C-alpha cells in the first residue's frame, strides 16, 4: 500500500459516488488533507518525520473520544491514566487547539463519580473550550439528564447544538437515545428537523464539521456500528462543498470519502475494539500491555479558510 492516496473530486464534490476508503490503526496513523477538491491521505510517520510540509491553518482543533472512565477490566485497568496521557499529547501540540471535541462515552456507567473524574482530568487540557456529545455509556439510566446538566448546558432537545468558528460551522448531534429494538444509532425526527433548519441559512461554501458518537455511516451494522436515520441527516448536507463527519464509538480510526463528505472515526483513549467482523463481538480487545498505547490516541484537525482544507491527523499514545 502506498504512503498516500490522491483522489480528484469534481468541483461540486457531490457526483462522485465511488468512495475512497482507507483504514489505519492509530499505531500507524493517518493524516488527511482536503485541498481544493483533492483529498490526500498520508502516513502519520511521514508527517512526524517531516517528509511532508507544514499543513497548519488558521484553525486547529482536537478530537478525543471514548474515555470510558470507570472501566477497569483486563483490556485497560487504568483508563484515567491513558486519558491523562492523551491530554499530555494534546498539550504538546506546537499550536494549542482552539477547542477540543469529546465524541462521547466519557464514562463507562454514567456514574456521577465517573463524570467527576473525567471533568477533573480534562481541566488540564490547554485549549479554549471543550465540546461534548454523549455516547450510549453516558445516558444509561436517565436518558442523558445528568450528562446534559454537566456537559450539555445551553444545548437543544436531547443535547444537540451548533456553533461557528473561523468561518466553519460545527454541529454536535446526539444519536444514542431512544434506540429501538433491533436498530442502530438514532437521531430522531425532532433532531433531523432542527438540523435541516440549522443549515438552511448557510452558504454552500461554508465548511461543515458534524460530530456525533455512533458513526453516521454504515461501518458495520451487524455490530450496531451505524445510525438508522443518518442518510436523512446527510441529505441536508449534500449541497455543501466540504463536510467532515467525526465519530467515535468503534475505538479505531477509519476513514471514508463519499462525494463531498469525509467520514472519520477516532481512537479511544481507553481500550481498542476489534476490526469489523474480526472477533465474536465488538467487546474490548485485550492486547499485550506493551501494545495498548499504540492502539489508543487522539485526532488533530487543521482547517485553512478559503482553501476548504481540513487536515486530519491521528496520533497514538505510544
Amino acid at each position, binding site marked *: 500500500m502506498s504512503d498516500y492516496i490522491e483522489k480528484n473530486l469534481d468541483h461540486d464534490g457531490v457526483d462522485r459516488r465511488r468512495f475512497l476508503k482507507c483504514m489505519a490503526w492509530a499505531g500507524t496513523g493517518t493524516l488527511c488533507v482536503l485541498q481544493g477538491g483533492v483529498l490526500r491521505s498520508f502516513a502519520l510517520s511521514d508527517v512526524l518525520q517531516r517528509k511532508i510540509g507544514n499543513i497548519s491553518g488558521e484553525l486547529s482543533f482536537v478530537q478525543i473520544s471514548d474515555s470510558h472512565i470507570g472501566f477497569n477490566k483486563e483490556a485497560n485497568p487504568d483508563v484515567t491514566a491513558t486519558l491523562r496521557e492523551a491530554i499530555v499529547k494534546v498539550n504538546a501540540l506546537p499550536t494549542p487547539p482552539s477547542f477540543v471535541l469529546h465524541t462521547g462515552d466519557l464514562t463507562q456507567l454514567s456514574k456521577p463519580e465517573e463524570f467527576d473524574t473525567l471533568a477533573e482530568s480534562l481541566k488540564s487540557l490547554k485549549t479554549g473550550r471543550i465540546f461534548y456529545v454523549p455516547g450510549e*455509556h453516558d445516558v444509561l439510566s436517565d436518558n442523558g439528564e445528568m450528562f446534559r446538566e454537566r456537559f450539555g448546558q445551553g444545548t437543544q432537545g436531547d443535547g444537540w447544538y451548533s456553533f461557528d468558528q473561523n468561518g466553519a460551522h460545527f454541529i454536535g448531534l446526539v444519536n444514542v437515545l431512544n434506540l429501538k*429494538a433491533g436498530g442502530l444509532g438514532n437521531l430522531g425526527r425532532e433532531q433531523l428537523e432542527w438540523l435541516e433548519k440549522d443549515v438552511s441559512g448557510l452558504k454552500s461554501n461554508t465548511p461543515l464539521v458534524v460530530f456525533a458518537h455512533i458513526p453516521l455511516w454504515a461501518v458495520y451494522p451487524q455490530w*450496531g456500528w451505524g445510525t438508522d436515520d443518518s442518510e436523512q441527516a446527510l441529505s441536508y448536507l449534500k449541497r455543501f462543498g466540504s463536510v467532515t463527519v467525526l465519530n467515535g464509538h468503534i475505538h479505531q480510526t477509519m476513514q471514508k470519502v463519499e462525494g463531498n463528505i469525509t467520514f472519520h472515526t477516532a481512537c479511544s483513549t481507553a481500550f481498542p475494539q476489534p476490526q469489523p467482523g474480526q472477533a465474536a*463481538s*465488538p467487546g474490548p480487545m485485550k492486547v499485550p500491555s506493551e501494545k495498548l498505547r499504540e492502539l489508543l490516541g487522539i485526532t488533530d484537525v487543521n482547517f485553512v479558510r478559503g482553501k476548504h482544507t481540513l487536515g486530519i491527523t491521528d496520533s497514538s499514545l505510544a
Partner: protein
Amino acid sequence: MKSKKATWIFGMTAIVVVGLVSMVGTRKIWAAGAGPSPGGIEVKIDNFSFGPMTMAVAVGATVTWTNYDDVPHTVVSDDKTTFKSKALDTGEHFSYTFLKPGKYPYFCSVHPKMVAEVVVQ
C-alpha cells in the same frame, strides 16, 4: 392453655414466614444484583448476545439474566414498560417473574442489535 399458646406461636410464625416469602417473592419479580446467580432459569449475556435467544418457560417462572461481558448491558422489554433492568455491569444480574402467558420480546437498550424473546406458556 398450652395448646392455645402453641397455636398462637404457630400462627405468628406462619405470618412471619408468609411475610418473608412474599417479600422474597416481590423482590424476585424485579430484582437486580451482583454476585453469584440466584439459580433457576438463566439467560447468559455474553459476546453481545442473549443466550438462549428464544426461551420457553411456564407461567410463574422466574428468569434471571447475568452479564458475562466486559461492557454494561440492559434487559428491556420491547414495549419498554413490562420489564426494564438498570445497566448491568459485569457479573450483575436481573430477574423477572412471568405471570401471564404470551410472547415477551426484549432487547438491550444500549446495544439494540441484541434482541431475544421469552415465550411464556
